[in-house]
């Protein structure tokens, strides 16, 4: 990895950790900490940031793998990682369903089974189990890992282009995003009709952009042109989005254009959301925001969370559902909501610390398997 990439890697971990914290807070809707998250001040939210950084991390990690071990090695690693994610997804879905079932039984309220869209699992388990293992039934809040699994499977296809012909990759990927939006194409769901919450045909574009950025970082190449005009445009767009979201949502216009070009649609990553996350990235890359956050977070908790993104995300998914349910059952006042959310974050930090400690212990036990700095980072 080039020096520039090494210098930037900590920023990716930091922002990924920040995105994980925001995703967790947003998964407990309307709790008193929600105003601290980016979703309230723009068209995009932490999910876009997470996928963009996942693409950057994939570019950084897999390009090295590609250069060292060739396409076969990259394919093997991507398949292995996708299977890990698949296993994690099935596990957290099962845990969430069991927790919801327990609460429904304990409280004698059948409506609780409908939590986060789990209802079909209990109403029609035979069909829904098929949907779960084929990733075509995705309860709400547990719908980003299926996207990530497909994106990882696409890495071996995208990577040669990201390395050698990034413009072609962006053109093909952007073309697919446009065609999917234009035609309303989405991956199917089963047994219920509909499409994926995170339409892979649309969201792959953001991941591909991230991969191109990661591949450039890995080779020490500049990513964002140092153009004052671009920076000013990005800043203006971020400010415009904040104004719209804060006060004028009800006046959203209808224009003689396809909705995805001017409307908000998270599933299809409509243009305003896509532009917003990219504008935010330009602004964050130009301003010393990462340094400021790192200064505030002197213990390095965000970077710790970012390095352990998958287990932290999985734990956070289940904990967010648990916090939601406890908040409902306890009729929690605002201060208890804050306590529950902070306790959930504390558990995730402890988990990340434990994983770091376990890795260090393994390294000491088997010196030949000692991990290089940053080994914990995974795409």
């Amino acid at each position, binding site marked *: 990895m080039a020096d520039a990439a090494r210098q930037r890697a900590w920023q990716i971990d930091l922002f990924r950790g920040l995105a994980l914290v925001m995703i967790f807070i947003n998964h407990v809707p309307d709790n008193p900490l929600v105003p601290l998250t980016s979703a309230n001040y723009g068209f995009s939210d932490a999910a876009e940031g997470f996928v963009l950084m996942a693409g950057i991390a994939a570019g950084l990690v897999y390009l090295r793998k590609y250069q060292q071990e060739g396409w076969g090695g990259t394919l093997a690693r991507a398949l292995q990682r996708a299977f890990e994610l698949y296993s994690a997804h099935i596990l957290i879905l099962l845990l969430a369903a069991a927790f919801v079932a327990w609460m429904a039984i304990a409280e004698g309220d059948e409506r609780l089974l409908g939590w*986060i869209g789990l209802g079909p699992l209990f109403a*029609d388990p*035979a069909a829904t189990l098929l949907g779960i293992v084929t990733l075509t039934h995705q309860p709400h809040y547990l719908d980003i890992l299926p996207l990530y699994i497909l994106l990882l499977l696409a890495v071996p296809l995208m990577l040669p282009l990201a390395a050698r012909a990034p413009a072609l990759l962006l053109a093909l990927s952007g073309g697919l995003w446009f065609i999917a939006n234009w035609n309303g194409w989405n991956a199917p769901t089963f047994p*219920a009709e*509909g499409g994926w919450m995170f339409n892979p045909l649309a969201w792959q574009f953001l991941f591909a952009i991230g991969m191109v950025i990661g591949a450039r970082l890995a080779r020490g190449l500049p990513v964002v042109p140092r153009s004052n005009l671009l920076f000013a445009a990005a800043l203006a767009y971020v400010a415009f989005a904040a104004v719209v979201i804060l006060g004028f949502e009800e006046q959203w216009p209808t224009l003689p254009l396809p909705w995805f070009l001017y409307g908000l649609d998270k599933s299809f990553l409509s243009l305003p959301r896509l532009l917003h996350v990219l504008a935010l990235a330009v602004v964050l890359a130009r301003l010393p925001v990462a340094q400021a956050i790192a200064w505030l977070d002197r213990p390095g908790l965000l970077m710790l969370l970012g390095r352990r993104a998958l287990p932290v995300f999985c734990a956070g998914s289940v904990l967010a559902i648990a916090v939601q349910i406890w908040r409902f059952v306890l009729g929690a006042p605002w201060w208890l909501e804050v306590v529950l959310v902070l306790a959930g974050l504390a558990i995730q930090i402890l988990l990340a610390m434990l994983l770091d400690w376990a890795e260090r212990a393994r390294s000491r036990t088997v010196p030949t398997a000692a991990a290089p700095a940053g080994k914990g980072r995974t795409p």
Partner: protein
Amino acid sequence: MRGRAVLRLVALCAVLLLPAAPGVSASAPACPPVGPEAELSAPLPRFAQAVASGGPIEILTVGLGSMRAGGVEGPFAQAFREALARGLPGRTINITAVPTPGMVARDAADRVRRGVAEGEPVLVIWRTGLTDALAVTDPTRFGRIVQRAAAWVSAQNADLVLVDLAYAGSAYEPTYRRYVDALAEVGRVGEAAVFRRYAITEAWHRAGVAPQPMAASEACLAEALAAAILRRVAP
């Protein structure tokens, strides 16, 4: 105490197992009667005009479940479509179903807007409230989000029917009721009609006639909704 918990567990398991029969008809042969609470809270002028014009009728349903025959959330959506077709024989009724599984109103409102902008329906039926109640979102904010979406739908020349959540007689009814009240307030403002599913199921529950299993109850509610809509266009 433990005995009651076991009984509750057995009863809930029975409820969970019963509706699993695939291919069950969406129609509800023996629905309990409904009272005045089954009337819509406002007229549907655009829908009535579309029916009077004799042309195809475009309807958008959001959060109502799948339209696929035998679909897991089908009882409501299927029974609604069948009842509407029976009430308007020979008419072309195109129903576009937009699922919102587990989505709070804030996210579902984007689906409503996109569905209306692309499909240009004359009637939008949006079932909402349960997810927000379970997630304990701010009821005032919930009402404001729905109100904004209702005003927007109205500006697009479509009628909106809001379907609130179901009653189950649990200890948490005061929580659920806050969201029912928020939707009723949107109806009072006048840019949406409210179908008071909560009031209907509460009346059934209190009279001891609530259909079991839940799938049957949903089919009965869907028929009541279709009937309420059709009464609004009857000459």
